[in-house]
C-alpha cells in the first residue's frame, strides 16, 4: 500500500513538473492566429514581422495594398505579419515603449499618431531613416510632415499622409437654410471666419439643426494655432492661455446657445458616429477622416460583415447617394488652417538586427517615398499624400462630396500648417484640455478653474513640470 502511494505521488509530481515545462514552451498556434490574412496564416518557414499600431488602418494598408502588389511578392513569400493593435493613446505608448525594450516580439515596424510621434522619434530604440537606408528628396515633402519627427537634425520617421484639416458640411442643410450649397460661397460667406461660423450656427439653430456634434470638435482648429508648445526645454509650463481662453469661450458660446448637439466629449463615441448619418451641420475633419471615419459611418444601412466588436460594417454596395447622408457632404478650408493627426511610420533598431530591415524599408518606401505606389494608395482611398510631387498629380471627383475635388482644398490647406509648437507630452496635455473644456461647457468649473485644472492634472503625471513663470 505504501509503495503504491509512493508511486502515485511520484507520478503526480512528475505530471506537475511536466505541465510546468509545457507552459514555458512558446505557443506558436496563438501567434499564428493573429497574423495577417494576405499570406496564408501561420507558416513556420516564414519570419514574423511584428507591427505595433494604434489603428486598424495599418493592417489594411499592409495586407490589402503592400502585399497584394505583384512587385512585393518576394516579401509575401518570406514574411508573415503579426499586428499588435492598441487604440487608446496612453495604452499604446506604454505597450509600444515597453515592447521596444525587449527582443521577443519587439516591434520591427511601428506607427505613431501626431500626439506622440515626437516622443517615439526621441526613443533610443527608434532607427533613423539613414539607419534603414531610406533616402528622400526633402523639398518634395510638405515640410511639417518631416519636421515632426526630426530629432537634432536627424530624420527619424516618415508619414505617408499630410493631414490638413477642413470643415465638412451638409449640402442639403446648406441649400435649405443658407440658400446655397456652393463651397466657395459657403467659405466666403458662412464658414470663413469664427464670426461667420457663429452666425451660421445661429441660423441653423433657429431651424433645429445643431452646428457641431460635441464640445471637442473645435479644439484642433484653435490649439494647433497656439503660439508656443505646452512646455519649454526646462520643463516650465508655457501654455498659450490666450488661445485656450479663446477656444473655451467660443465653444461655450456655442453650447450655451444650444448649437452643440452633445455638451460632452463625443469624438470616437457612438453619438459622434450617429451624428454623421444625420443630426448636425458640420464636422471638423481632415484627409483620413473623410475615408476612414466619415464615409463608413455616414451610411445608415450597412449590409457588410461585422467587425471584431460585432458592429455592422458598410459594404461597397451601401455607398450610394440617399443611404444616410452619403453624397450630401462638401468640404471647405474653414475659419483657420489646422492639421489633425497623421500616421508616422518608424523602423526600430530591432529590425536592423533580426533581418527584417529589407521588408520594413520596403513598406515605408512603398507608402511614404515611392511616387507611383503612394499615388495608387491615395487614389484608392482618397487620402492625401505627404509629398507635394504626388499631390500635384492627384485630382478626384469624390462621390461622398457630391463630386467635389477634395484634393484642390487640401493642397491649399497643407501649405499653411504650422507644427513648431508640439512637444512630447502633447498626449497628456491635450487629454486634460478635453476634460477641462467639457467641465467648463457644462458649467461644473469656471473658466479659471478649468484652465488651472489642465496644469494640475498634467502635473500629476509629469512631476518635473514647473509652474508657469
Amino acid at each position, binding site marked *: 500500500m505504501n509503495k503504491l502511494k509512493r508511486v502515485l*505521488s511520484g507520478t503526480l*509530481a512528475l505530471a*506537475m513538473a511536466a505541465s*510546468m515545462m509545457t507552459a514555458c514552451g512558446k505557443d506558436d498556434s496563438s501567434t499564428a492566429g493573429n497574423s495577417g490574412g494576405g499570406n496564408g496564416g501561420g507558416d513556420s518557414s516564414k519570419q514574423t514581422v511584428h507591427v505595433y499600431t494604434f489603428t486598424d488602418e495599418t493592417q489594411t494598408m499592409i495586407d490589402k495594398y503592400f502585399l497584394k502588389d505583384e512587385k512585393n511578392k518576394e516579401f509575401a513569400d518570406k514574411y508573415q505579419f503579426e499586428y499588435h493593435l492598441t487604440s*487608446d*493613446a*496612453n*495604452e499604446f*505608448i*506604454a505597450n509600444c*515603449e*515597453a515592447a*521596444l*525594450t525587449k527582443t521577443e516580439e519587439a516591434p520591427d515596424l511601428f506607427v505613431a499618431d501626431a500626439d506622440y510621434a515626437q516622443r517615439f522619434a526621441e526613443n*533610443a*530604440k527608434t532607427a533613423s531613416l539613414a539607419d534603414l537606408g531610406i533616402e528622400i528628396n526633402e523639398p518634395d515633402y510638405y515640410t511639417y510632415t518631416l519636421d515632426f519627427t526630426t530629432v537634432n537634425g536627424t530624420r527619424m520617421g516618415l508619414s505617408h499622409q499630410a493631414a490638413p484639416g477642413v470643415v465638412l458640411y451638409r449640402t442639403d442643410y446648406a441649400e435649405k437654410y443658407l440658400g446655397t450649397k456652393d463651397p466657395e460661397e459657403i467659405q466666403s460667406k458662412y464658414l470663413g471666419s469664427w464670426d461667420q461660423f457663429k452666425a451660421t450656427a445661429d441660423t441653423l439653430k433657429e431651424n433645429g439643426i*445643431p452646428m457641431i456634434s460635441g464640445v471637442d470638435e473645435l479644439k484642433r482648429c484653435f490649439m494647433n494655432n497656439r503660439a508656443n508648445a505646452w512646455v519649454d526645454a526646462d520643463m516650465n509650463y508655457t501654455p498659450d492661455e490666450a488661445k485656450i481662453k479663446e477656444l473655451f469661450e467660443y465653444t461655450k458660446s456655442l*453650447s450655451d446657445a*444650444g448649437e*452643440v*448637439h*452633445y*455638451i*460632452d*466629449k463625443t*469624438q*470616437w*463615441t*457612438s*453619438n459622434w458616429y*450617429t451624428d454623421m448619418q444625420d443630426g448636425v451641420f458640420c464636422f471638423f475633419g481632415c484627409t483620413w477622416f473623410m475615408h476612414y471615419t466619415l464615409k463608413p459611418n455616414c451610411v445608415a444601412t450597412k449590409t457588410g460583415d461585422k467587425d471584431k466588436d460585432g458592429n455592422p460594417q458598410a459594404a461597397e454596395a451601401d455607398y450610394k447617394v440617399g443611404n444616410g447622408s452619403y453624397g450630401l457632404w462638401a468640404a471647405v478650408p474653414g475659419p483657420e488652417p489646422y492639421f489633425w493627426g497623421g500616421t508616422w511610420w518608424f523602423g526600430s533598431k530591432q529590425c536592423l538586427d533580426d533581418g527584417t530591415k529589407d521588408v520594413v524599408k520596403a513598406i515605408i518606401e512603398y507608402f511614404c517615398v515611392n511616387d507611383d505606389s503612394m499615388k495608387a494608395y491615395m487614389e484608392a482611398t482618397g487620402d492625401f499624400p505627404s509629398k507635394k510631387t504626388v499631390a500635384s498629380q492627384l485630382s478626384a471627383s469624390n462621390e461622398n462630396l457630391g463630386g467635389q475635388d477634395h484634393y484642390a482644398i487640401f493642397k491649399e490647406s497643407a501649405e499653411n500648417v504650422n507644427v513648431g509648437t508640439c512637444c512630447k*507630452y502633447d*498626449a*497628456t496635455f491635450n*487629454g486634460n484640455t*478635453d*476634460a477641462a473644456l*467639457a*467641465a467648463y461647457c*457644462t*458649467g*461644473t468649473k469656471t473658466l479659471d478653474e478649468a484652465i488651472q485644472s489642465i496644469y*494640475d*492634472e*498634467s*502635473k*500629476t*503625471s*509629469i*512631476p*518635473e513640470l514647473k509652474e508657469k513663470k
Partner: protein
Amino acid sequence: MASSFKTRAKLEKNHFGYIFIAPFFITYFVFQIIPLINTFYYSLTDIKAWYVNPEMNYNFVGFDMFKMVLTEASFKRAFVNTPVMWIMGFIPQLLMALLLASWFTNEKIRVKGQGFFKVVFYMPNIMTATTIGLLFLAFIRPNGFIHNIAIAIGYIKNPSMPFTSGWFGRGVVAFINFWMWYGQTMIVLIAGIMGINPSFFEAASIDGASGWQSFWRITLPLIRPIMTYSLVTSLIGGFQMFDVPNMMGNGDNAAMFRFDIQTIVMYIKTIATTGSNSIGKACAASVILFLITAVCSCVLFYLTSDRAEAKAKRMEKKRAKEAALQEGGDL
C-alpha cells in the same frame, strides 16, 4: 533505536509536503515579495519607467515624492472618492445580503427555488467588471436609457447636457459594486448562519422568541466573525477599487465626472503610465495606499472584536491575580 527511526520517517514525509507547496512560495517570493520590497525602495527615488529610461538611472530624493503626492489636489480627491464610493456600496450590500441570507435559512419561510435565486443573485459577480462598466457607461451617456429617463422625469432639462453631478457618478460606481457583490456576501453569510447550532433556534422558539428576536439575539452575534471577514476583505478590495471606475472615466470614455470617480489606484496608474512615467512617484503613492489599508484593517479588527469578552477575560485575570496575591498575603 526504533524511536529515532520513526522520527526520521516522519521528517521525510514532511519533506514531501515542502516540495508540493514550494512552487507557490517560490512564485510568491519572486512575483510578490521582491516587487513589494522594491516598491518601498523605489518610492525614495525619482526613477522613470524602464521603457523611457532604459539605463535605469535614478537619484535618491528622500521623501520628496511622498511630499508631492500628499500635497497634490488630485491625490486628496482620490483619497476621498475611494472610501466614499466603498461605503456607499458596502452598506446596502451588507444589508441586502443579511436580509436574503436570513430569509434563505429561515426554517419557517422555506423559500422555494433557492438554488435558482442564489445563482441569479450571484450572476453579476461572474461577469467581468469591464463589461459591466462599459454597459453602464452606455446607459448614462446622452442617448442611453438612464439619460433618457432623466430627461423624461425632468431631472435633466437640456437634452444635450450629460450627467454632470459627481455624486451621480459616485452613486453609479457604488451601485455597480453593490450589485456585483451582494450575491457573494450573501453566500458567505448563509454559510455562517448554517454553521450555527440549530438547537439554539429551537430553544428560542420554545421560549416564545419572535423571528426578529432570534435574528437579533442569536444569528447576528454568532455570525459576527463571518461579517468581520466580509468587512475586512471588502475594505481592502474597496481601497483598491479600480476596474469599474476606470472603465467609466478613462481616456475616450471621459464622462463628465471622470475626476469625481477617480480612485487611488487609478491615480497611481495615471502617474505610472502617462506623462513622464514617474515610477518613483507611483511607488510613493502605492506605499501610502498600503499604509492606509493596513491602518484601516487594524482599526476594523479592533472595533469588531468582541470587546466585552476581552474585558471579561481581563477582569478574570485581574481577579485571579488578586486572589493569588491575597493567598500569598495569607501565607
